[in-house]
């Protein structure tokens, strides 16, 4: 076995000197949240870095809705799930159809549509929130799940269309031509050739839209306000309204809320890294 040279040890030490602060910086807010989630109330406020009596009691309180702030936990969890899934499905349908029309069917004016979509993508969503809130009021959709679903579809579609268009531009035209020769209609090509070939990008975009909707706070908090209509992030924000908020329960709920997207992210990382980062910045 070869002993490491002094130079190699030096390099390794320098890398560790970067790696350890990066690790601490990344983990502090997450560990703090986890710490609160497993601490009984007395330990949570004592400034300890590990509780004397770690417990899962907080989770049981949340799951059994045994606190005033948590009385609608499961309904709110369900709202989050329904809205995220609906946004994912609708975005996929709308964006896939649009990308197919723009990239494969060469509809006149499709370039304009693509540019309009890109433009919407770049306008920060927070600036669209105020007019969107008023518009939803005019449509009579406020406090209705559909307002949030439609708002999130509006925000998710432009990027979805753009990524899918980039991906479908790479599919060989010969495939379409061969299918046309065999007498396939545009709809058959879409169903039998296009969608199966686009699967990896579709998975990435579906995941993107679901996570975007699950994580959204601003629109959810503006558009929904009844305790039984709101999504989990809004419920978390509402904890702040009281001065004596039960932090350990808030952090436990936050931890539960953060787990599904983290799991989805890591499960689909393969698709996310290939499909999305390539699309995010084309150099």
């Amino acid at each position, binding site marked *: 076995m070869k002993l490491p040279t002094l130079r190699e040890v030096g390099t390794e030490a320098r890398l560790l000197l970067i790696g350890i602060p990066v690790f601490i910086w*990344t983990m502090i807010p997450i560990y703090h949240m986890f710490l609160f989630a497993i601490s009984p109330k007395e330990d949570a406020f004592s*400034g300890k870095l590990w509780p004397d009596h770690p417990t899962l009691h907080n989770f049981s309180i949340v799951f059994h809705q045994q606190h005033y702030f948590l009385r609608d936990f499961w309904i709110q969890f369900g709202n989050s799930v329904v809205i995220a899934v609906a946004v994912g499905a609708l975005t996929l349908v709308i964006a896939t159809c649009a990308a197919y029309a723009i990239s494969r069917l060469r509809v006149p004016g499709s370039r304009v549509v693509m540019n309009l979509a890109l433009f919407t993508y770049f306008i920060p969503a927070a600036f669209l929130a105020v*007019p969107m809130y008023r518009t939803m009021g005019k449509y009579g959709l406020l406090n209705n799940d559909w307002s949030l679903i439609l708002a999130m579809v*509006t925000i998710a579609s432009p990027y979805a269309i753009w990524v899918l268009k980039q991906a479908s531009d790479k599919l060989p035209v010969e495939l379409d031509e061969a299918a046309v020769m065999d007498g396939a209609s545009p709809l058959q090509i879409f169903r039998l050739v296009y969608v199966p070939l686009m699967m990896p990008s579709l998975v990435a975009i579906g995941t993107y839209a679901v996570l975007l909707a699950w994580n959204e706070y601003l629109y959810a908090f503006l558009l929904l306000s009844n305790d039984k209509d709101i999504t989990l992030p809004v419920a978390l924000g509402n904890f702040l309204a009281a001065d004596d908020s039960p*932090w350990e329960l808030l952090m436990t709920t936050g931890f539960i809320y953060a787990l599904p997207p983290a799991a989805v992210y890591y499960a689909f990382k393969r698709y996310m890294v290939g499909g999305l980062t390539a699309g995010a910045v084309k150099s």
Partner: protein
Amino acid sequence: MAITLSASDSALAEAPRPVLLTPSQVWGIVMLAPYLLVFLAFVVYPVGYGLWLARDPASYVALFNDPIFARAAVNTLIFLLVGINLKMLIALFLSGFFIQQRGWIKWLSVIFILPWAVPSIPTILSVRFMLNPEWGVINQLIFKFTGEDGPNWLNDPTVALAMAIGMHIWKSLPFWTLILMTGRLAISHDLFEAAEVDGATWWQKFRFITWPSMQTLYITCTLLSMIWTLGDFNSVYLLTGGGPADLTHVLSTLGIRYLRLDQLSLAMASIVCAMPLVLPLVYFMMKRLSR
């Protein structure tokens, strides 16, 4: 309209040749329709309506007379110029760290992406509690070790804004590091080997190989990050709530503040005032991406 009319006219004339729309183009329009409907109903109409609400010059006068607006504009600029550049420089540096071939660095990169993978609300609230002057873990530790009370972190506008910027960096640093890593990995390894043979220093390798091939990507990322950061509502709103005394608002939280106070025309006017900042950046990004 003209297109469909002439299409049906020629169909009536039983001359299929000069039909302007092929069946596949008709299908294309049908498939484009859902997005166009969404776009009309939830982008064009709201924006047009919002601009109409913001048409009154009096609301701009009121806005410019509101000291909170001036403060928010300055805060936004600080957020963009200091926060983004700091973040992108760190991301550029860390991208060089994370492409090192080590087992533990690979594991670290999996952990490093966590802030991007988890929703921002719980982590921002977690930091907010950490910074609580009485019960927060930071001041508890300061008291334990020094016997003195720690600072009232979020009660000082400068510190509070710095914390919001830190929160933003914490959240989005992994994403940009990942993007810049792909840029670094695309550089041919031969160049570095040749430089190694020539005895180039670390700085020379960065200056003459890495930077020239990454600068376009880096600048694109910086501009894109600026656009997105203009819309970063959560980092400020949930950490400081715009406080103390409305001194840490940025333009994205200010619009919502006016909306909550039922001053709709002021809210829209503040958003219109952000456009000179947003539109040039958007224009540049559109030119870069729609080639």
